[in-house]
């Protein structure tokens, strides 16, 4: 009896499952898109956690006012246009005729509701409040919204490109309910949320009434596959159509496979070395005999010598397997606010030795480098290589790498009095906004919690001329002038070797032949950028 019921149940389930599959299979299987992601989501609530996997996925369902194209240049999305009326007021004209997934029309009320919700999601591990803080939103009419700020704020459109607009009806929906898909009104995006299995997959179905046109996919499944070799194997096995974050060691092989295509572009992420600028005596720097010496990193010539001793093309060729580009500043050429004058510092060991001697260290010193493991592509190998390069310069170099969870805490506040603990560290920085202001402000501006400057300045670099230029740029609403001011600030800090950039990563996707991925600088894998060939 027992076996009978179990079998009966099994047969029944099979029948139930098979019926729809069989009817749809013929029509839809070709249009289903399966994507392998490298990181896990923490929620489907677009305002709960400001981290890229979440933001990326939310973008399919909930669109922001302002969009970012594949090179992160701003483009109209839910706002058709925007302009600064005066130095402290921005006006956004909203797109008309846009509907949420259930047919509710999109208006200024939804924007106002979103601005109330986004910074105030309970228990948010990283909220969007910084993008909304200090801004007053008013509805002028159904399709016009004004944003008032206390001081000139050129980055208002950029800030509003970071999170999606939810319908006013879902303003009180909790994060848990978003996960369960209980915001039935949905967003205005090209895709609707169909299924979310935490730690496993997100399934999206197309929004038939999307204002931006029809999507070619009948169903999009994002699978979270954190192990890189597994992701590659799943693509090779045909389980997936597209994978992101291809390990550098596999790129050459995948390029050589006739059944696959590879798409890549330079990333907004720079890998760099931050160094102790603020201590008279730095904890991980000693004289050759082990004695305490004054911090040599405060000497410009020493910093220049270290930068010249790094063989950037060598790192790119050998360690990154050509999946990177040597860096001379904080963002690759062509990004907003980058300098046209700066080039990667050329490798010149003799020149570096000379500079080091001129600075008063003809015999070098001892130094320990620190860095995270498995946070950036090939991070440990890069640190080890650079340590070798410094050793050739005459600096006895040791390496210590730590798990990210320990490294970042100690690198930010592990020293006495909650200051950064290390002397010389490898870190990476992705400019989420796509312009150099966020990198400069976070990494090189003088550390000042009250003003929110230099929050990630782990070397505590401080240069008043640079600060003044940056502040000028951050309060210039005119784009051309701001671009110029940022480039100048970049020049000042790089010529002063505030930090040492080594390379920009490449973002790489691999896909089945016939599926074309639009490579993006922000590392986002968007189904809306994947097309059939």
């Amino acid at each position, binding site marked *: 009896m027992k076996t009978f019921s179990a079998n009966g*149940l*099994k047969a029944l*389930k*099979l029948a139930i*499952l098979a019926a729809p599959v069989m009817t749809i299979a013929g029509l839809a299987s070709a249009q289903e898109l399966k994507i392998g992601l490298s990181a*896990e989501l*923490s*929620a489907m609530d677009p305002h*709960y*956690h*400001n*981290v890229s996997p979440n933001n990326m996925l939310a973008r399919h369902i909930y669109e922001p006012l302002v969009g970012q194209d594949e090179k992160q240049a701003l483009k109209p999305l839910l706002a058709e246009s925007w302009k600064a009326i005066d130095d402290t007021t921005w006006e956004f004209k909203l797109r008309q005729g846009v509907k949420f997934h259930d047919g509710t029309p999109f208006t200024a009320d939804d924007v106002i509701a979103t601005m109330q919700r986004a910074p105030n999601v*309970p*228990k*948010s*591990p*990283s*909220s969007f*409040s*910084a993008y909304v803080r200090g801004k007053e939103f008013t509805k002028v009419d159904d399709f016009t919204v004004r944003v008032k700020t206390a001081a000139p704020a050129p980055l208002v459109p950029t800030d509003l490109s970071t999170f999606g607009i939810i319908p006013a009806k879902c303003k009180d929906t909790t*994060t*848990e309910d978003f*996960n369960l898909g209980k915001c039935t009104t949905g967003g205005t995006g090209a895709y609707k949320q169909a299924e979310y*299995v*935490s*730690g*496993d*997959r997100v399934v999206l179905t197309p929004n038939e009434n999307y204002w931006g046109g029809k999507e070619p996919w009948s169903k999009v499944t994002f*699978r979270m*596959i*954190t*192990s890189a*070799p*597994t992701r590659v*194997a*799943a693509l*090779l*096995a*045909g*389980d997936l159509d597209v994978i992101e974050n291809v390990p550098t060691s596999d790129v050459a092989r995948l390029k050589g496979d006739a059944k696959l295509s590879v798409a890549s572009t330079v990333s907004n992420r720079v890998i760099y070395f931050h160094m102790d600028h603020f201590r008279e005596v730095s904890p991980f720097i000693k004289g050759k005999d082990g004695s305490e010496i004054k911090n040599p990193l405060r000497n410009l010539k020493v910093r220049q010598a270290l930068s010249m001793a790094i063989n950037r093309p060598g790192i790119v060729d050998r360690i990154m397997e050509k999946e990177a580009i040597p860096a001379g500043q904080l963002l690759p050429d062509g990004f907003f606010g980058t300098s046209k004058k700066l080039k990667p510092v050329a490798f010149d060991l003799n020149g570096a030795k000379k500079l080091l001697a001129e600075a008063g260290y003809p015999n070098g010193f001892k130094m320990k480098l620190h860095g995270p493991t498995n946070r950036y592509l090939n991070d440990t190998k890069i640190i080890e290589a650079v340590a070798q390069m410094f050793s050739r310069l005459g600096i006895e170099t040791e390496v210590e790498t730590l*798990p*990210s*969870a*320990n490294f*970042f*805490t*100690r690198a*930010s*506040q592990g020293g006495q009095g909650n200051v950064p603990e290390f002397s010389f560290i490898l870190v990476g*920085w*992705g400019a*989420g*906004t796509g312009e150099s202001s*966020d990198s400069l402000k*976070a990494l090189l501006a003088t550390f000042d*919690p009250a003003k*929110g*400057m230099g*929050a*990630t300045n782990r070397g505590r670099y401080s240069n008043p001329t640079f600060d003044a230029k940056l502040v000028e740029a951050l309060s210039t609403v005119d784009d051309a002038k701001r671009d110029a001011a940022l480039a100048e600030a970049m020049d000042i800090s790089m010529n002063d070797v505030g930090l040492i950039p080594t390379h920009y990563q490449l973002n790489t996707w691999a896909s089945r032949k016939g599926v074309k991925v639009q490579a993006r600088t922000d590392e986002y894998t968007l189904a809306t950028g994947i097309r059939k060939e």
Partner: protein
Amino acid sequence: MLAFVLRRLAQALFVIAAMLVIVFFGVNVVGDPIYMLISPEMDQQQIAETARALGLDRPIWEQFLVFLKNAAQGDLGRSFVHGESAIKLILHRMPATLELAFVALVLAILIGLPLGLYAGLKPESRLSRFIMAVSILGFSLPTFWVGLMLILTFAVSLGWLPATGRGPTVSVLGIETSLLTMQGWQHVALPAFNLALLKISLVIRLARAGAREAALMDYVKFARAKGLSQSRIIGVHILKNIMIPIVTVLGLEFGSLVAFSVVTETIFAWPGMGRLLLEAITRLDRPVIVAYVMVVVVLFVTINLLVDLVYSALDPRVRLTEATS
């Protein structure tokens, strides 16, 4: 009997309480989760806001008191990352892991027992030597490597089985399982075999040792003398007697299959609790780590208790009541 169970329960409670304290403080001295959670572009004010929102701005002993207060009500805290109850998250992912562990255990018995039995009854044959050699490989090859090889062989090269993930699930009495569909079995096959590999070797060795010993026992000789069939001697007299140590070990091994399937789950992108733990560790999601360890402690304590009871049922010579005297 009752006294024995009560005594074991009291011991269990003490173990759980001690683990609670050790784990909480152990996990809370490592790093600072804020830097793992927050978007790197955020400023100092936002870092402080997040610390406040998660209660990380308070001194550790105060956090512990809050934790104890909630734990007394069965709430082991909310995940920093997901914002949901840590226990709920774990329980939600548990069926996937249990499924994997269960299939692995069945595979270990189905494959390991006959092979081990054969190797024990015919220790000199070539096949037996081969089985023993292979079982050494099972012990010594690293799980992640075998996992990748399985994927490369059966998914990439041969294309017989899917490389990753769990198949479609069906809800039975509120529990999601993928073992009721063909597709589900295809998905579970490789990871379960990967997870089972070590246990298969273990069962082979236990069964072989047991069989070799039992084959020389008087009761087997008498059975032979009575003219019983070979299959009856092996199936009833030998098998039944070698099952006792195997059940004991497998009981405990089941616990480790459930608790530490981290590697297999990661390699095969299996959405179980192992991956949740790994994610929690990399992101320093303390409440989830603490809750996970507590769930595992409770699991092991329970399994130990059950194994003792089953043991006594299999072998009537074991008197549980004696333990109290």
